[in-house]
């Protein structure tokens, strides 16, 4: 799984951090998303998918490796 984030789109709702804190964090100065791990391990895949689903700004893109 490959993850990317769009900091321009991000609205700092914090939903991704709640869903997958191992993969997403926020900048202290404005709460905008910071990607901690662009290639998260399989055991986090479900949490990361959830994070993308709950993101209100559609700022998280997931590319699945087949």
């Amino acid at each position, binding site marked *: 799984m490959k993850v990317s984030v769009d900091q321009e789109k991000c*609205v*700092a*709702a*914090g*939903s991704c*951090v*709640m*869903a997958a*804190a191992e993969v997403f964090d*926020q900048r*202290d*100065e*404005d*709460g*905008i998303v910071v990607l901690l791990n662009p290639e998260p391990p399989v055991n986090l895949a479900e949490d990361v998918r*959830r994070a993308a*689903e*709950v993101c*209100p*700004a*559609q700022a998280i893109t997931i590319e699945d490796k087949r």
Partner: protein
Amino acid sequence: MTDTDIPPYDITRDARCPLDPAPAMRARQAEGPLSRVRMWDGSTPWLVTGHAAHREVLGCPVVSADPGRGAPALSPHEAEAVKAAAAAPRPAGSNTSFIMMDDPEHARLRRMVTSAFTIKRMNALRPVVQQIADDLVGQLLAGPNPVDLVEAFALPLPSLAISALLGVPYDDHELFQANSKLLINRDTSAQDRGAAQQRLAGYLDGLIEAKMADPGEDLLSGLVERINAGELTRAGAASMGVLMLFAGHETTANMITLGTLALLEHPGQAALMRNSDDPKLTASAVEELLRFLTITHGGLRRVALQDIEIAGQTVRAGEALIVVNETANRDPQVFADPDRLDITRDARLHATFGYGIHQCLGQPLARLELQIAYPTLLRRIPSLRLAAGLDEIPFKHDGFVYGAYHLPVSW
């Protein structure tokens, strides 16, 4: 369907099922995710009731939230207030109410306050809010029995929390609670609304002046930095402070009140929460209560700026849309058995905070407060029960945010 067959917009909930969406809204939902509704002024905007369509509209970059571009008004008072605001001579930069703005200005202003609501900041605030809740329960138990839970717990908890976050002295709570009440009531006249807004802005301006001389770590002091950097006018900072203060306590107060009521009405679910020490269950219970109750009811106002396709229908440029959270939250395609309260379900896709760029800014604070409020009440007062019948509880049928004016409880 001829024009006269279009049903009226009606969000009145059924007194027998006060926690469920209005019967008229459920009826529209049953007809499909998108239908026409007749408003107070005879206009017939689209009513968006489905979950997928809710996300399509609110996530669409060519849909506007700006009343100046044609986003509809839900009541004559609202229309009057919008008209008055547009006509009033206001100094440049003083309008910072970004909830009714589009990007890029919306994003620029919103990002001035987002740092105060990061998950990290909320985790640091957790012991503070727990202390607030513990102190309030202590006072409640030492006071009269029965008591009004709204006055004794549900309102002061978020009021104290947002005051701490903003840097507003809680001693002034009567001033900001009374004026917020006026702002949130949909029947408040444009004149009274403007006066309440001005009183709050004047109050916030005084605080901002004080923070200029003696800054702290709070949100208002952060806004002072923006004023000093030339990114915000002082009037703009005061208006943003009003928005934060107002949005920060009425909403959560109603959610604490109705959530407690829902748990007391579902004793099995309440027992599950009381006896669990799993923070994940508490978190999931809060999401489910947010979904089930949808206190942010009645619909979000939008207007299409270009022709767009929603739920297989073409919505034309210039057409107004009313996007309904409470029916999206009861959409069986997303939530199995949607009318059942089940705190163990994964309800995170609920629509209560909205969706898209305007999704609630304060949601991490609301979650923190609710995750503390319910378990603290249930565990410290295990015999907590309603001291009135459901039919005796005054629900807020007149508010932009649903809730109850009073909730008599005993133990």
